[in-house]
């Protein structure tokens, strides 16, 4: 039962990943694309949680931990570059 519900959640998350990708394609400025990349990162973090649940290995959540820390650095670097250069 929980497998079915989590699969439905994964399908919805894949659709939202595609929608965020559309904004990354056609955003007019670089800040729009950075916002889309940030949203894609957070959606991918949930997707990694789903992969960890489906395969039943807790080690996969470590990847999500690393990703949550590292992507923040990338977004802050993009913001500082857009503002005045790193």
């Amino acid at each position: 039962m929980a497998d079915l519900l989590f699969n439905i959640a994964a399908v919805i998350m894949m659709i939202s990943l595609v929608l965020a990708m559309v904004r990354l394609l056609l955003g007019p400025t670089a800040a729009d694309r950075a916002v889309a990349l940030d949203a894609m990162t957070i959606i991918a973090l949930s997707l990694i949680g789903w992969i960890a649940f489906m395969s039943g290995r807790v080690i996969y959540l470590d990847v999500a931990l690393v990703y949550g820390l590292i992507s923040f650095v990338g977004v802050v670097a993009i913001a500082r570059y857009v503002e005045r250069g790193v």
Partner: protein
Amino acid sequence: MNLAIVIILGLLMLIAAVTALYLKTLSSAVIASGAVSLLASILFLLLAAPDVAMTEAAIGSALTTVVFLYALSRMRGKKKEEPRD
């Protein structure tokens, strides 16, 4: 289920890579290549390689983005007048 997700992720990766080729401004292209490495990291995780996924996340998403942007801001140099986005 898994195969469909792998195919969709691969297609998204391809679209992001082509976008990174054809964008006019350089910082947008750097952001698109960051999206490529993000999708590649999920794909490695689906192929049951968590250590490769962790390395791809650390290097592809943070380190190359920061190094590219640092190089761009060094190359831009004194010319402050041109549009930045």
